[in-house]
């Protein structure tokens, strides 16, 4: 083909990307409104509510996921700087970290080790493929870091992202019941466990319990992300 002149970009692709981007933002706004209406029910998860109609559209009109990614990749890119922003609440709440660093350190190690080891062992015992197990291992970590870890250890980042979301929903819905079962009343312990085991979705749920619970959850989520990202690839090198 011999186009000349005005041909800096493929405008059809730009248009298609823009369409999916605007649709994603619109559906997200609808999902947020629905969640507010439901009183913050963790089952009405904004990611699920926004992603499912898009998946249905792609399926019905037989659109390759790569076409959706023309717009979606912009949001995925913003996820990087947004994750770096986790440093801000961690720094602001540093007084909490210093006041309770010993129980935090113990809970952090226990939570992250149990999360990683149990998902590898259970997945393996039940006969999941190696790719699936590698994608499951970092599932308690907050999404962008988890996707990075999955890439590092040979898992599939997109699969990990979905596992993180479902882990968050499961944790957010079940944690209060589990705490009652073993009699955990300390708001700091509850919050920290929410953050370590259920990441961002757990943290949103923890903030509904109290400000202190939510703060500890956010700290737990960030510390868990940092620690798991450093330890898991090393563990994997060691085993493999």
């Amino acid at each position, binding site marked *: 083909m011999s186009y000349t002149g005005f041909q800096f970009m493929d405008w059809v692709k730009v248009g298609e990307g823009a369409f999916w981007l605007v649709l994603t933002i619109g559906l997200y706004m609808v999902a947020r409104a629905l969640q507010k209406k439901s009183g913050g029910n963790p089952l009405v*998860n*904004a*990611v*699920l509510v*926004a*992603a499912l109609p898009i998946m249905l559209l792609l*399926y019905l009109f037989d659109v390759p*996921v790569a076409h959706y*990614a023309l717009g*979606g990749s912009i949001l*995925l890119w*913003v996820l*990087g*700087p*947004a994750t*770096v*922003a986790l*440093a*801000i609440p*961690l*720094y*602001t709440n540093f007084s909490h970290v210093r006041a*309770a660093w010993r*129980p935090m350190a*113990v*809970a952090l190690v*226990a939570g992250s080790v*149990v*999360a990683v080891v*149990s*998902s590898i062992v*259970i*997945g393996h015992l039940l006969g*999941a*493929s190696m790719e*699936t197990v590698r994608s499951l291992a970092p*599932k308690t970590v907050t*999404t962008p870091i988890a*996707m*990075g*870890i999955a890439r590092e250890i040979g898992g599939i*980042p997109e*699969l990990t992202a*979905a596992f993180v979301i*479902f882990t968050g929903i*499961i*944790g957010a819905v*079940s*944690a209060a019941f*589990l705490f009652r079962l*073993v009699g955990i009343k*300390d708001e700091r*312990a509850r919050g*920290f*466990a929410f953050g370590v*085991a259920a990441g961002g979705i757990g943290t949103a749920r923890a903030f509904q319990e109290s400000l202190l619970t939510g703060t500890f959850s956010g700290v737990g989520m960030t510390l868990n992300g*940092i620690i798991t*990202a450093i330890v898991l*690839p090393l563990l994997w*090198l060691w085993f493999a």
Partner: protein
Amino acid sequence: MAGLKARRIGGRVLGFVALVLCLELGNLMVWGLGLPVPGTVIGILILLLGLAALRHVPDTLNDVSLWLLGHLNLLYVPAGVGVMGYVALVAQDFWPIVVTLFLSTFLATLASALAFRWAAGKSR
């Protein structure tokens, strides 16, 4: 009023640029030193060091960060949609995945909360 708003937006852009710089510096270090860690984690550590050196959080950075963190769910949507490319694998490992997600999350929640209570009781 309009000037004030423009300044706030300008500040947010500046804060966002600072976040991107931390991230790219992290990516650069990961690439240059061959670290087996995602660049985002190094980016967080760089920003933490920067804040510790400044001894406070600049308003511009604080504004844009809280705004981004408040809309993390929007940024997860494309990642969720991306699963469509792996339907076959999910279908093949469906039950192992479901059981692992539930059991492992229960165990991690309990382990973390019980460990916290145990350690907090000990240090008292």
